[in-house]
């Protein structure tokens, strides 16, 4: 998301942004309207994870694993909130000096040290800024699990998540969003976290499904979603919540938020349509699961772009992303045979990359976008975007691999075969989802 400093940085270069009243004020002062919107946005982003993402994913697994998915999302939520409070916020948004300053924010704000009810961040209470950012830290690792549900071991997963947010997410968040962060200087455009959240989680999931291996019976047994209804509810909630994610990333209720919002509507509607159209062309029938996948693909792709591209750019981006993701979740996945169970890679990583790259293009003022920083060209910006994507893929890919191995060595990352057969709900949680 565009934190204050970042937005101010870009604003200096973009006349459009300078006209907004919010930026006219010199000394930051709490604004009730902005605060209202950011509290709403924070609630919306939590809503995305619980129950949004949990249902989107949960609907796609078999009944016997439903609760394990809901539970993994819930526990990740609790764990990351606690870690964020203890040191995560400080690592990501604290300020430190010295050689490590580009990589983390230090521990100065650990345990919310020095932050009070009267602390203000931009025009909103710092507490609200804290929770808004926290909801991003929560959903990112929750996204990862889609790649290896139905077989992952809970203790190993929780250890992995604790390590991953500490060594991958918090540092990357600092590098991208922290005013003195490493990537910030390079001028990569990522309005609401396409890189930090989606590419990051997508590649971590991909590595995870390779490390953990395929489900027993994969490709042979029927692994049809146990409730496409739940998946549709989840996707819809994701859409609604994503307005908080994207328009909330303006950190104010202003014209930029309005731009992020209109894009989050139009690109998603377009992606929904184009996924369905692709299915109709390729298979003769458009499925609800496809439409839900299209919604999410559109949301992912517009995330980095939503505050930079114009609505027609958003529309085109939405139309483009679905066929590309469709190609990955059908052709590419089946060709290489990895079991990325709920297509975290095919939708989040690929959709995130498509979004990041096209942001570099559609941000051009000539294409209806807000324009580039002074002196930057489309080609130049595109290369910056490529660099940001590649760096994230490598950092998160390699980091995740190491952390999976550690968690695997300590607790194991996979349940035994009998438990997998019987289902994680009974074997890991001692309960079953439905008694109709």
């Amino acid at each position: 998301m565009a934190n204050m400093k970042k937005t101010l940085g870009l604003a200096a270069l973009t006349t459009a942004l300078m006209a907004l009243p919010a930026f006219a004020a010199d000394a930051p002062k709490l604004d009730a309207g902005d605060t209202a919107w950011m509290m709403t946005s924070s609630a919306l982003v939590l809503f995305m994870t619980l129950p949004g993402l949990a249902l989107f994913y949960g609907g796609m697994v078999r009944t016997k694993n439903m609760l394990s998915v809901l539970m993994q999302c819930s526990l990740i939520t609790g764990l990351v909130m606690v870690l964020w409070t203890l040191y995560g916020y400080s690592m990501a948004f604290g300020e430190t000096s010295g050689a490590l300053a580009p990589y983390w924010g230090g521990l100065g704000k650990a345990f919310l040290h020095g932050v009070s009810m009267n602390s203000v961040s931009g025009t909103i209470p710092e507490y609200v800024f804290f929770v808004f950012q926290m909801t991003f830290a929560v959903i990112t690792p929750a996204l990862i699990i889609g790649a290896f549900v139905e077989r992952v071991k809970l203790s190993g997963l929780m250890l992995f998540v604790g390590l991953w947010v500490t060594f991958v997410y918090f540092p990357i968040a600092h590098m991208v969003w922290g005013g003195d962060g490493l990537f910030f200087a390079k001028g990569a455009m990522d309005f609401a976290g396409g890189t930090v959240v989606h590419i990051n989680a997508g590649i971590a999931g991909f590595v995870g499904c390779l490390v953990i291996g395929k489900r027993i019976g994969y490709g042979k047994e029927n692994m049809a979603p146990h409730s496409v209804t739940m998946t549709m509810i989840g996707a819809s909630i994701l859409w609604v919540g994503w307005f908080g994610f994207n328009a909330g990333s303006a950190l104010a209720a202003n014209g930029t938020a309005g731009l992020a919002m209109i894009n989050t509507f139009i690109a998603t509607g377009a992606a929904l349509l184009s996924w369905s159209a692709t299915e109709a062309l390729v298979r003769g029938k458009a499925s609800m699961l496809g439409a839900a996948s299209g919604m999410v693909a559109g949301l992912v792709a517009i995330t980095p772009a939503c505050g930079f591209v114009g609505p027609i750019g958003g529309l085109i981006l939405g139309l483009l992303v679905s066929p590309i993701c469709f190609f990955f979740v059908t052709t590419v996945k089946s060709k290489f045979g990895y079991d990325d169970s709920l297509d975290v890679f095919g939708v989040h990583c690929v959709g995130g990359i498509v979004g990041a790259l096209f942001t570099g293009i559609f941000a051009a003022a000539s294409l209806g976008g807000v324009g580039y920083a002074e002196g930057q060209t489309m080609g130049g910006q595109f290369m910056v975007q490529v660099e940001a994507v590649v760096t994230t893929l490598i950092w998160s890919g390699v980091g995740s691999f190491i952390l999976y191995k550690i968690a695997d060595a300590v607790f194991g990352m996979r349940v035994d075969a009998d438990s997998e057969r019987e289902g994680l709900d009974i074997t890991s949680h001692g309960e079953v989802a439905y008694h109709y």
Partner: protein
Amino acid sequence: MKLIIAAIKPFKLEEVREALTAIGVRGMMVTEIKGFGSQSGHTEIYRGAEYAVNFVPKVKLEIVVSDGLADQVVETIQTTAKTDKIGDGKIFVLDVASAVRVRTGETNEDAL
């Protein structure tokens, strides 16, 4: 006594039940089953994965009647459940050695 087992199309259940009641059948057990036969199933596709579902939803009736009524029951089911399309179902008849009504302990034909 005979046990008559019939697999029929689900939407025919109500009609068959009425027809059987009309000829004096006073009880039955109905189960939703997956039928496999010459009627073909369908294909489901979820993202990349394609599943051929070879089973078709059917309803199974199990009815115990006196020997005397058995033929009529079979015939009634056959004529009522028939739609002349593939997958209309089958009827099987088995011998029953004895029957008991739980509530009263009555046995055999008295139990039906």
